[in-house]
């Protein structure tokens, strides 16, 4: 079953088509990887799904319901949550409060204080940050701040989670820990759409991959299909003739 669908998704910034006529679909329960060179439009596509930017044309549907024109807080309450490429934690609060914001406001129903606290603590435990729940979030390392963002997103009880470069800036050990975390989130039954530059991670955990280049979708398929795809190789490694010279 398709949980998220986009048809003719287009976004212009002035005369530049940052995302141009992209059709895509995410199946319930899968991990879909979104790759492409810098400036390919990956984050713009995320911003269109989460409502941070309005579509220029096209249509995005979540569980059959149109997302066009909805505000980010409404889309969040429908069950779509996200993290950010440059971490956007609430720097003026301790870790637990960061996650509490998600728990209190992310759900369409009224959440009691006790329930919110329980959800927030569960989410922190899930990402392995229980020990630092009272620490000011600005004192944490980048890796931990990214985990706070994941916990905060999980506390909103999402069905679809958008992860924007969760692994950028992490070392090899941290990458494999993050991969394990993403897989565990999927095992909870949460569908994941992830932008990633770390190929090992994308190829390791996602079932399917979609490739954007200059705002257009140039390829889509399983990991092995994509890694043999001529156009994709050309974009990432340069054409063979050039590579030889």
């Amino acid at each position, binding site marked *: 079953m398709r949980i998220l669908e986009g048809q003719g998704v287009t976004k212009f910034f002035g005369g530049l088509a940052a995302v141009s006529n992209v059709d895509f679909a995410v199946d319930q329960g899968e991990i879909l990887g979104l790759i492409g060179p810098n400036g390919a439009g990956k984050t713009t596509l995320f911003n269109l799904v*989460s409502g*941070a930017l309005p579509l220029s044309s096209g249509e995005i549907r979540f569980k059959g319901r149109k997302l066009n024109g909805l*505000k*980010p*807080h409404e889309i*969040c*309450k429908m069950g779509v*949550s*996200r993290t*950010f490429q440059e971490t*956007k*934690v*609430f*720097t*003026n*609060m301790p870790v637990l*409060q*960061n996650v*509490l*914001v*998600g728990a*209190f*406001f*992310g*759900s369409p129903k009224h959440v009691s*204080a006790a329930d919110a606290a329980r959800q927030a603590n569960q989410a922190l435990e899930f990402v392995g940050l229980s020990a630092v729940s009272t620490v000011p979030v600005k004192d944490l390392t980048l890796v931990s701040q990214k985990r706070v963002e994941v916990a*905060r*997103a999980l506390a*909103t009880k999402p069905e679809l989670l958008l992860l924007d470069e969760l692994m950028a800036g992490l070392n090899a050990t941290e990458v494999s820990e993050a991969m394990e975390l993403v897989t565990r989130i999927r095992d909870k039954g949460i569908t994941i759409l992830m932008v990633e530059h770390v190929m090992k991670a994308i190829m390791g955990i996602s079932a399917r991959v979609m490739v954007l280049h200059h705002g257009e979708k140039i390829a889509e398929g399983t990991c092995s299909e994509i890694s043999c795809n001529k156009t994709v190789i050309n974009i990432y490694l340069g054409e063979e003739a050039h590579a030889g010279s």
Partner: protein
Amino acid sequence: MDITRFVSTHRKLLLGGFLILVLIFLATFPLYARAYDIRVLIFVLIYVVLAVSWAMFSGTTGYMSLAPAAFFGLGMYAMALLQNELPFLLIIAMGGAVSFVFALLVGLVTLRLKGMYFAVFTFGLVVFMTEIIQYLETRLLGKHGQAIVPIDNETLFYIMVGVVVATVLVTYLIRRSRLGLAMLSIGGNEEAAEHMGVNTTMVKVLTFAISSIFMGVAGVVAAPVLIYVNSNIAFSLYYSFLPIFMATLGGVGTTYGPVMGAVILGYLDTRLRAELFNYFNLGFGVIMVLIILFLPKGITGLVPMLQDKLGGAMRRLRKGDREERHANT
């Protein structure tokens, strides 16, 4: 024996006791104080309300509002125009209601402005109010300025104490509520807050309007103290900047910070401004520069700093003590 431990374990008790003492002081003050001192304290309390309500919105959301004077002046004019029509308590309610509605309208238009732009707009709002009220007053009433019938000191004083208690209580409760968490998340990162399900526009507009209620009410009470208001007095930018200085001096991160700042600067302002006007402004500027340089978190920021320093000194002392004892045995 250990004073820091005693304070931390009996914190609530001590705080409650302190608040009761303050209330007893306020309740009995008019019984023995001179009329002049009562008026000074009324104005200090007015500044407390302005500073606390300013910090309630701007301190948490990070939206720098320079508009307190707009709502404060609106309250004064509500008093000026309604003094012969309605009883005083009803005018107070009206002043709050008018400010609330006006802030709601202003907020809906302007709270999509970010950072500097919001500050500039609210600054312009005060200037605009000065001009438009003066224009309307001269066109419709044929005069500039309104005389206010004085109200006796005791009544004004006790009403103002009530307003302060209400302001501080509401601010404290909002700070602890989920609305307070939402405001704080906007201050932390508005985009992230919006994506975590916080209806940021609604939260900003609503809390901006709530904070304006208290500013309007303070204006109603201020009018009979001043006896005469015109648009330049009522919408003076001084009433926008002073509460900000006060809140910054006290520290905007807490409810009691702005109270302390307002009490200190408000007292200096009302007592010294009349007596040493030029020196006062000079001294004021120096104080502000010093606060920004050395106390970016205000007086409340001093507490953890001192705790750190004092704690370290105490530990060293105790350690020295123990070593001495060891040496003796």
